[in-house]
C-alpha cells in the first residue's frame, strides 16, 4: 500500500527533515508513527498525501510513484485516501452534513448518492443527529468524528491521521481510536501519527518510531522489505 525507499526530504529553510527513510505498509495494516516533535512524522504524512515531494528516493502510494506522478494525477491518488488532522480542518461556515458532502461533491458524485452516503457516514461515526449543526456547536471529539466521516467519504483504501487525538480528552481519544480501529477492521489501511505512547502501548499494532528524520525503531522491521522493486 505504501512504500518508502531511501526517502530524503530537505526543506530550504529548516533543513533535513528525513534521511534515507525506508519502510513498507501492507494493505489493511494499522500502524502507529511515533517520535518527538520535529522527528519527521508530519513530513512522512505529507509525502504520503502528496503535499510534498521527496528530495531523494521514492514514495509509492496505492500504485502511484512520487518519481513518475504528474500534477494532474495527484487528485486521483488523493481520492484513494482520507486525511485526518489534529485541528480537524472543517469548514466553519458549513454544517456537518455540508462538510462531509463537500468531499463527495468535488469528486462529482450525484446529489442523491451524496445524501444517502452522508447519512450513512454520520451513522458510522455516531453523529446522526448532528447533521445540521455547525462545527463550532460540537465538542472536539465530535468535530474529529466529522473529519473522519469526511475522510471516509470517498471509500479510501488508506486513512492518514496526523495526531488525530492530540486536541482531545482521554474519553474522546478512546472514542476516536476505537473508530479508527473499526475502520481498519473493515479493511482500510490506517497510518496514525501520535505522541500518545500510552495509546500505542495499549495495543499490539505495528509502531514505527522516528527521531531526527530517521527510523529508530520498527516493531515489525522483519516484514519491511528494503528493496524498491517489490509491488506495492
Amino acid at each position, binding site marked *: 500500500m505504501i512504500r518508502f525507499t531511501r526517502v530524503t526530504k530537505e526543506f530550504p529553510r529548516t533543513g533535513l527533515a528525513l534521511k534515507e527513510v525506508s519502510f513498507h505498509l501492507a494493505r489493511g495494516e494499522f500502524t502507529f508513527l511515533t517520535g518527538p516533535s520535529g522527528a519527521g512524522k508530519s513530513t512522512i504524512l505529507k509525502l504520503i498525501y502528496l503535499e510534498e515531494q521527496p528530495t531523494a528516493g521514492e514514495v509509492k502510494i496505492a500504485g502511484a510513484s512520487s518519481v513518475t506522478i504528474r500534477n494532474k494525477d495527484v487528485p486521483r491518488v488523493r481520492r484513494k485516501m482520507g*486525511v485526518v488532522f489534529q485541528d480537524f480542518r472543517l469548514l466553519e461556515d458549513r454544517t456537518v452534513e455540508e462538510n462531509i458532502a463537500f468531499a463527495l461533491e468535488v469528486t462529482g458524485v450525484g446529489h442523491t448518492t451524496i445524501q444517502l452516503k452522508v447519512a450513512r457516514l454520520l451513522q458510522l461515526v455516531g453523529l446522526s443527529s448532528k447533521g445540521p449543526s455547525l462545527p463550532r456547536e460540537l465538542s472536539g471529539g465530535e468535530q474529529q468524528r466529522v473529519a473522519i466521516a*469526511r475522510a471516509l467519504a470517498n471509500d479510501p483504501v488508506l486513512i492518514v491521521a496526523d495526531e488525530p487525538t492530540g486536541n482531545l480528552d482521554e474519553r474522546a481519544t478512546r472514542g476516536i481510536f476505537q473508530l479508527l480501529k473499526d475502520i481498519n477492521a473493515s479493511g482500510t489501511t490506517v497510518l496514525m501519527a501520535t505522541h500518545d505512547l500510552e495509546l500505542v502501548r495499549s495495543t499490539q499494532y505495528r509502531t514505527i518510531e522516528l527521531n531526527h528524520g530517521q527510523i529508530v525503531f520498527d516493531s515489525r522491521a522483519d516484514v519491511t522489505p528494503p528493496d524498491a522493486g517489490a509491488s506495492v
Partner: protein
Amino acid sequence: MRLAWREALLAFKRAPMLSALSITTIAFSLFAFGLFGLVALNIRKALVEVEERVEVRAFIVDGTTSESTSAAIADVRAFPEVASVTLVTPEQALDRARRELGEFNDVFDPSILPASLDVRLKGGMRDPATVHAVAERMKTYDFIDDVRYGEEWVEKLHRIRNVATIAGILLGLTFATVAIVIIGSTIRMAILARAREISIMRLVGATDSFIRSPFLIEGALKGLLGGLLALAFAWIANYVIGHFVFRADFFDIRLSVLGVLGGALIGVLGSALSVGRHLREV
C-alpha cells in the same frame, strides 16, 4: 458547473462584507478609468468637430466661365481625399462674411469678394500633408487665383490631436494598469481569506480546475457588478457636470456594454491569475 455556480454565489452570502468591499473597489477603479474615458471621449469629439472645419478654399479668377468651374468641381470631387466641393458665389461669400465678421455689415457690393470653391476633406485625411497636397493640386487650375487653408492652424490642430492621442493612450494604459492591479489585489485578498477552504478541497481530491471554477465565476460576477456600479457612478458624474458645468457626451450603449463586460473580463483575469498563483504556492 452547477456546483461551481453554487459555490460562487455562496461565497457572496458567506462573506458579504468582503464581497461588497471587492465590488466597491472594482467599481471605483473602473469609475476612475471611466471618468478618464469620458474626458478622452469628449476631447476627441471636440477635436473631430474642429477638424471638420478644415477646408481648402480656392479663389476663382473673375470672368471664369461656369463650364470651366463645373468641370473643375467634377474633377476635384473625384479626388480620393475630397468629401465635398461647394461653389461659393460672391453674393454667398458676402453673406457669410457678414455672418462671421461684423466689419462686412456695411458692405453691399458683392463684387469685392471673389467666388471660391470650398473643398472639405474626408475624415482621417485632414492632416497638414494631405491638405497641402490637395491645395497644391487646386493651384494647377489656371482659373484659380489663390488657395488658402489656414496652414498654421491645420498644423497646430494636427499637433494637438497627436499629443492628445499619445497622452490618451498613456493615461488610459496607466489607469487600466492601476485598475487591474487594484482589482487583482482585491481578488487575491478574497482568495487568501479562503485559503483554508482551498487546502481542504485539495486534500479531498479536488482538481485544480474544479477549485478554480467558482473563483472565476465569482471574479466575473464581481467585475460585472463593479462595472455596472462604475457605469452608474460615471453617469451620475456626467449628469452633475452636465447640469452645473457644461454639457458633455456620455458613452453610447455599445461603449457602456463594452465597459461593463471589460469589468467582468478583468474580474475573470484577476481571479485566474490570483488563484493560479495561490495554487502554485500551496
